[in-house]
């Protein structure tokens, strides 16, 4: 999205001092990433060299007994994120279609405004709602009510505005002459949307979902409050689960030595996953540009 404008800055005689001043600041900002990774690695170091390092790939998390298995938590994170996306994807795209293709004027503006505001919804408030309103409802089907599905629903509500806004933006980029052509061919609205508009906006929709995935994967508070937080391999989606992020939030307050280092390992794992997702998103975007040209 950043590189939409043709870069013509090279045409200009550079102002050396000002330019290098700005570059200096930019370099520091980029160093922030190195700093973050560096400090997290440094703090995770004792774990690499401890004799319990191999337990990292086990499924047991009993930090006081020297078991630091991250697999069940990674699975938990992936499961919760997956459910959130399965819910948020169709809902988000449907709402975007509704706003862009079916509604006109004031109503469309109001809905867009609502969802634009909702992108900034604090996760802790959603977690509070989940804990006090959704969990009692869910506990009708399974005793505790705090499990993967609840967390997935709360997360889905958190990321659905992101999906809606990005889908809306990519539907706006669909050329209007496609719509005129479809009308001339007497295609129904449904056929036009399913066969033409969605394929044309496909890469935008994907990148919106990847963006939502990044947000859902990194979310702490909303999940922490409703997921049950038991660090065991979940057997069904009605089992409580602990994610990587909530693991850090829950135990950081009192962790020491190897235990503390293992929490930084959780952080490192999170950074690694997010980096992969960002590169996936970047590759989607370059494809988009290629099609555009």
């Amino acid at each position, binding site marked *: 999205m*950043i590189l*939409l*404008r*043709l*870069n013509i*800055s090279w*045409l*200009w005689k*550079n*102002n050396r001092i000002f*330019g290098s*001043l700005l*570059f200096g*600041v*930019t370099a520091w*900002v*980029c160093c922030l*990433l190195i*700093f*973050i990774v560096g*400090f*997290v690695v440094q703090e995770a170091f004792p774990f690499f060299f401890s004799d319990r390092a191999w337990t990292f790939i086990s499924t047991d998390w009993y930090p006081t007994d020297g078991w630091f298995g991250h697999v069940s938590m990674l699975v938990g994170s992936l499961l919760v994120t997956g459910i959130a996306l399965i819910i948020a994807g*169709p*809902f988000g795209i*449907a*709402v975007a*279609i*509704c706003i862009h293709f*079916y509604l006109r004027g004031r109503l469309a503006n109001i809905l867009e*405004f*609502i969802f*634009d*505001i909702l992108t*900034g919804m*604090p*996760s*802790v*408030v959603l*977690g*509070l*709602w989940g804990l*006090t*309103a959704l969990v009692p409802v869910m506990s009708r089907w399974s005793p505790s009510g705090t499990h993967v599905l609840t967390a997935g629903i709360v997360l889905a*509500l958190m990321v659905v505005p992101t999906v809606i806004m990005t889908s809306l933006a990519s539907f706006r980029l669909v050329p209007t002459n496609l719509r005129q052509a479809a009308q001339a061919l007497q295609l*129904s*609205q*449904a*056929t036009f949307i*399913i066969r033409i508009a969605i394929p044309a906006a496909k890469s935008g929709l994907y990148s919106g979902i990847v963006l939502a995935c990044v947000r859902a994967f*990194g*979310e*702490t*508070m909303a999940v922490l409050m409703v997921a049950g937080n038991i660090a065991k391999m979940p057997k069904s989606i009605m089992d409580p689960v602990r994610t990587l992020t909530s693991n850090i*939030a829950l135990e*950081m*307050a009192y962790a020491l030595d190897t235990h503390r280092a293992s929490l930084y390992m959780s952080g490192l794992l*999170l950074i690694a996953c997010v980096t992969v*997702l*960002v590169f996936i998103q*970047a590759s989607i975007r370059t494809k988009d540009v290629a099609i555009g040209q």
Partner: protein
Amino acid sequence: MVSNQKRAVSRQQDFKNKVFTALIFSLTGLLLLVILWIFGQILIRGLGTISWEFLISNPLNSGRAGGIASILQTTAWVLLIAVTVTVPLGLATSLWLSEFKSVRLGAWVSKAIYILAGVPSIVYGLFGNTFFCLYLQLGYSILAGGLTLAAMILPYFIHTCLLGFNLVDNQWRLGAQALGLSKITFIVQILLPQAAPAVAAGLILSIGRATAETAALLFTSGFVDKTPESWLDSGRTLSVHIYDLALNITGGESGAYGTALVLIVLLFMINSLAHQLVVSKRNNRMDGMNG
């Protein structure tokens, strides 16, 4: 015969169209109902707690009674620190990316910023805890929390600023060049005034994001609910207060809902301001293109 077949096909089409429309509208309606449920709950439970007294008194009995005055104060301090650090750094970086970058270096820098934007907030919390609290020896303090938040909203602010600078047409750059303006003059006199609404919107959105943040502050600014006396005191923001009341304190639910209502109203004002700025800018641009 043929026309019968045609009619059957068109009836089938018609049916498909109706089903699809119904599906779209029912999904939208369902989502809106859930959102109504969320806000109804917060409004009803929150209004029961909230009063003028709630806003101007300090929390008592770890938040079960009393108000949120000291917490509002802490939130304001943390945000102030985050914004003062973010604005110069973010503006400089986005100006470089927009006007000065070389292609190769620029690609690396924007990739780094994308990754920074994706790093989970709890990891910023880990980083803030090691770097600001322990390494720079700030301890659990408002300053450490503010700096951590600054790091967190920086990539977001840069991204929105860049979008604003990209909206300024290249015509302006060519024109400025033709007139022999220096780059600094162009940036100060033309680019920044033109992109001001976008930059302001980016700033406001970043403030909103910082206000909503909890995870990054848990281990940097801490949990103390007293009125902060200096930057180096620990203090909790609105969202941390909600988290603590909802999860760790039995009987804190009503206080949590009251605080949540305050937070939501605050964020509504912040974000709708930003929305207005962005939408007005977009409409202006469209008018400009038509005329």
